């Protein structure tokens, strides 16, 4: 789980925060409400998760509870890998 969180964190910092590792990015922070990603960012994130973790994000899984924080994303990937 920690390794997944770190990969997701690294991806977000690199692609949405211009590599600014000093920027605040808490594990439980809402990525959308805090302005880190917008709707096109969600599409980008989905592509990353599918490529990096070999999962298929189904249409009905595109929900904040699966994608809207580092914690939520990591838990979602764990569940998907067990399927």
């Amino acid at each position, binding site marked *: 789980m920690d390794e997944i969180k770190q990969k997701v964190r690294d991806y977000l910092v690199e692609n949405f925060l211009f590599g600014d590792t000093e920027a605040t990015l808490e594990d439980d922070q809402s990525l959308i409400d805090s*302005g880190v990603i*917008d*709707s096109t960012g*969600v599409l*980008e994130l*989905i592509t990353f998760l599918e490529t990096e973790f070999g999962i298929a994000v189904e*249409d*009905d899984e*595109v929900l904040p509870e699966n994608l809207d924080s580092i914690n939520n994303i990591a838990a979602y990937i764990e569940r998907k890998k067990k399927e």
Partner: protein
Amino acid sequence: MAFSRKDLEIDPAQVTDQLVARMRKVIGQRFHKRGVVLGISGGVDSSVCLALSVRAFGPRHVVALALPESDSDPESAVLARKLARQFDVEFIVEDITPALAGFGTYRRRDEAIKRVFPEYDPTYKAKIVLPGNLMEKETLNVFYLTIISPEGEEKTKRLPLREYLQIVAASNFKQRSRMAMLYYHAERLNYGVVGTGNKDEHEQGFFVKWGDGGADIKPIAHLFKTQVYQLAEYLDIPEEIRSRPPTTDTYSAESTQEEFFFRVPFEVGDLVWLGMEKNVPVEEIAAAAGITPEQVERIQKDIKRKLRFAEYLKASPVHFDD
């Protein structure tokens, strides 16, 4: 008094008088223009803007343009012509299809569509939609491409990012080309350009930056869609325009504004939004709108996200001299 639909009501006569006075002041005294040009589509927003412009400047100082292209609904230009006749203004039709072809609009868009649906060709229709109805589930705003074969068979797939961006970027040539044509006519006449977006569109970012967002005055950009309809009735906009569902009239397949962007009927969205602005408790908004508090919260979250991300579209160029 409890929050209700009445809170969305305006005094259309008073609002009209105020807008007319301000339009005259800005166009005449501040910008020193002799009249206005606007694009009319047969939709309620541009129709209201036309009526306001005629009241402000007189029909001899207003020019109305229809700016169709090959994907446009032919009904738009028909309704636009009728309206121009009703208000006795000069009416010019400028077909922007050749300009768009020159930009490669249709080719660039179709290239992206074909990457998603290899069977797609120009005999198909296509549109972009958002997932379902926001009141039913809290899905995030990701985009789906629907194609319709000449035989009427529909297929829908979630759009990958690259294809979504390319389709939208190619389609945005339409609004930007319209802006260029409006400014051609405005500048040759020394007129200003009237933008016709309403508050729902302007604040939530349902416009193309420097496309339909490019104008000199935007007389209804502070009015909820619901309020625009109230003005439309007062200003004698024909019933056939007032009863037409708001469309995007951008994609080759018919697409309502609700399915492409807003995800809820504007009659509900406007009330929920106004309640949010006035800090009305969620339960009271729910009662007024006839929906559940959970649905109110879902809609408000979606509106807040759109308001935030519309900042980019509304921003003027940023200078770094301070």
